[in-house]
């Protein structure tokens, strides 16, 4: 196969990577087991951040992102991200995304967590789906022109590795098992490691299997211990249902019962941002309370439910059988987003030349805790940036060795792995739990338990509490020792963690 960009994953990051290549006239292969309509990106609800308000600036957006991430994100990458955000929103409008609008040309903005001013552009509470419909449509144009070729029902199998890095990858057709060998730059956009836990708010397809296979191959991971527990998720069979932060952005309040009366603990204890404090802060508070927390939306006007929270209302009625206009929703923190993942530089290059990563599968932009509204933005900007780097570098010469694919984990082993991971990587962790988790995983075969051990190794070595990483045996944040990036590697025999300095802002 000729030189091209091979994009693994057809969600928002993968689509933008493929589009960036195609717009430059470079053919892109888009690999995914299911069509883009099924990607986790369609589940995003609340919106996308961009400094578009009159009282806002990209520097403010930068400051909020860095502060929410407890200063663990790469400042140069975040700087580019927030500077690009207003342009990305305009581009989405040009593609026909139906954001809620004020007047003709300007998207409406809403409040979101961790930000004191309105900065989140939204399409009711189906922002991800609306964005994806427009971007899929744009990709279709390039498919018809032969510049994007979809390999539907195909899964990543293994990298091709030559003397100087990654030269391509093999893909395997689902159900038939037929293999195809591709040459070109490889951009991984395969989503977060939700399958390590099971029962998250995310998609079942975001198993983390591609990240696991790459880690086994020697691709380092970064900041894997930073796992976002979203404060407002509700129990439903087989998963956690996300109640979008938009619900609080529109006025929803969190309470626990004190003597039969609501006590609005966030408003009382965090008067500055209250119910819109960063997610790590609220989840930690809920964990320390140890009581049933309720999300109260009963005071919101019907118009807000109709025009701004339609999907949220629908989700509650259908899956929880709760009418949030009448009754408070019982909520608890649930695994929602992986800040860490494949270690990339500010331009989305991995440690292997010729291999790039974007979207939730990579470690970029979010530091120790992601700001609500920055995931769609990070996926779009990261996809573009990864493709940009891949095109600038050009593909490696043909001639790498195609590494053998992993065997699929049995249901029994998957459930065993998930049980161990949930026990060791809760909101709060300590040394004993993590060491026990690592030791127990050693008995399980395959790449997924290896990935789980890698994450736990980082969590064990980071002897401090910061953002989404809460160590009950090290409750303080320790900037001298750990205001650094956790990098975990595998050499074929041993997992090792080191802490790398974060680049200075230029």
């Amino acid at each position, binding site marked *: 196969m000729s030189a091209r960009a091979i994009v693994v994953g057809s969600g928002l990051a993968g689509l933008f990577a493929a589009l960036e290549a195609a717009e430059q006239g470079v053919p892109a292969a888009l690999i995914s087991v299911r069509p883009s309509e099924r990607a986790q990106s369609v589940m995003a609800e609340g919106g996308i951040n961009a400094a578009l308000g009159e009282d806002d600036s990209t520097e403010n957006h930068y400051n909020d992102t860095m502060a929410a991430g407890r200063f663990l994100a790469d400042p140069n990458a975040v700087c580019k991200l927030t500077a690009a955000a207003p342009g990305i929103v305009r581009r989405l409008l040009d593609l026909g995304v139906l954001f809620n609008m004020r007047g003709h040309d300007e998207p409406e903005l809403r409040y979101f967590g961790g930000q004191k001013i309105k900065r989140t552009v939204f399409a009711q509470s189906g922002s991800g789906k609306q964005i994806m419909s427009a971007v899929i449509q744009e990709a279709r144009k390039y498919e018809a022109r032969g510049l994007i070729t979809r390999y539907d029902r195909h899964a990543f199998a293994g990298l091709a590795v030559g003397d100087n890095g990654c030269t391509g990858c093999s893909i395997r057709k689902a*159900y038939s098992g037929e293999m195809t060998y591709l040459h070109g730059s490889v951009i991984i956009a395969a989503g977060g490691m939700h399958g390590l836990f099971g029962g998250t708010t995310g998609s*079942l397809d975001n198993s983390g299997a591609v990240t696991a296979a790459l880690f086994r191959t020697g691709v380092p991971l970064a900041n894997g211990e930073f796992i976002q527990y979203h404060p407002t998720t509700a129990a439903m069979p087989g998963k956690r249902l996300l109640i979008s932060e938009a619900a609080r952005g529109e006025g929803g309040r969190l309470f626990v019962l004190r003597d039969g009366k609501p006590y609005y603990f966030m408003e009382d204890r965090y008067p500055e941002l209250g119910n819109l404090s960063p997610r790590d802060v609220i989840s930690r508070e809920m964990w320390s309370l140890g009581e049933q927390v309720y999300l109260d939306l009963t005071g919101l006007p019907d118009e807000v439910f109709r025009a701004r929270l339609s*999907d949220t209302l629908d989700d509650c009625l259908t899956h929880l059988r709760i009418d949030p206009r009448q009754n408070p929703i019982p909520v608890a923190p649930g695994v929602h987003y992986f800040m860490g993942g494949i270690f990339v530089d500010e331009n989305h290059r991995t440690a292997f030349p010729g291999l790039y990563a974007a979207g939730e599968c990579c470690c970029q932009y979010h530091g120790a805790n992601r700001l609500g509204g920055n995931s769609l933005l990070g996926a779009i900007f990261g996809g573009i940036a990864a493709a940009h780097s891949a095109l600038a570098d050009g593909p490696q010469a043909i001639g790498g060795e195609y590494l053998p694919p992993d065997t699929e984990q049995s249901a029994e082993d998957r459930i065993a792995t998930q049980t161990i991971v949930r026990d060791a990587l809760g909101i709060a962790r300590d040394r004993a739990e993590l060491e026990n988790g690592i030791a127990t995983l050693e008995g399980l075969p395959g790449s997924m338990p290896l990935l789980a051990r890698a994450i736990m190794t980082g969590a064990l070595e980071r002897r401090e509490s910061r953002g989404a990483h809460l160590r009950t045996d090290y409750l303080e944040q320790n900037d001298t020792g750990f205001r650094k990036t956790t990098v975990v590697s595998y050499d074929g025999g041993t997992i090792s963690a080191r802490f790398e300095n974060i680049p200075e802002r230029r």
Partner: protein
Amino acid sequence: MGFRCSLKIKRQEKPGAAPYWQTFSSEAGGEATVAAALREINDRTPLTDLDGGRAMPISWECACLQRKCGACAMRVNGAPRLACSAFLSEFPGGEIVLEPLGKFPVISDLTVDRSVIFERMKQARLWLEEKAYLSGRRHEVSYQSARCLMCGCCLEVCPNFGAAEDFGGALLSVNAYRTLEQSSGGGHKKEMSEAYRKLYFSGCGGSLACHQICPLELPVEELLLRSNAVAVWGR
């Protein structure tokens, strides 16, 4: 507490293989969905059917589990549904029959090949060649158009889909609305309108079967009429 039910599943190992029926019991609660029950069955080790015989994992598609991705469309007691929003408590008799969608080739068990949906979208040339024209006027209808999950339930009940060679069905018309509305005119809009007439308008027999079946309850009838108005009647 346990809500006993049985899932009778039409199985087929691979394309061309002979289909057969296999029944599984489920103890999933009444609040559970068909999707949750299927996952629970596939997670069993060893996996056995109602009679205690060994069974292969059931092949079916599933991603979001909350009616946002359209992956899990199948026939539930004869009607096309999303497994993630078909609740066990809806079937008080306790026997639930699951079959693959019948309008698409079976790949394995309940997994079918719906690639024709995406091919038709390409044939219909549904994209913009210029910046989207955003008129506030049709915002809500366009929003509904873009919500379509591409699950194929509306095609399953359509007497014309699959009969006429290149008929795209309601799904195509529902999706076309936003694109047609946002296209500011010119050559490409003309091209889209021509393709629309060929791939949708001339093939629709007006059975109305698609109007009530959408698992999202999209305003299908309104979207069809509006798409027709733009693409066929030039309004």
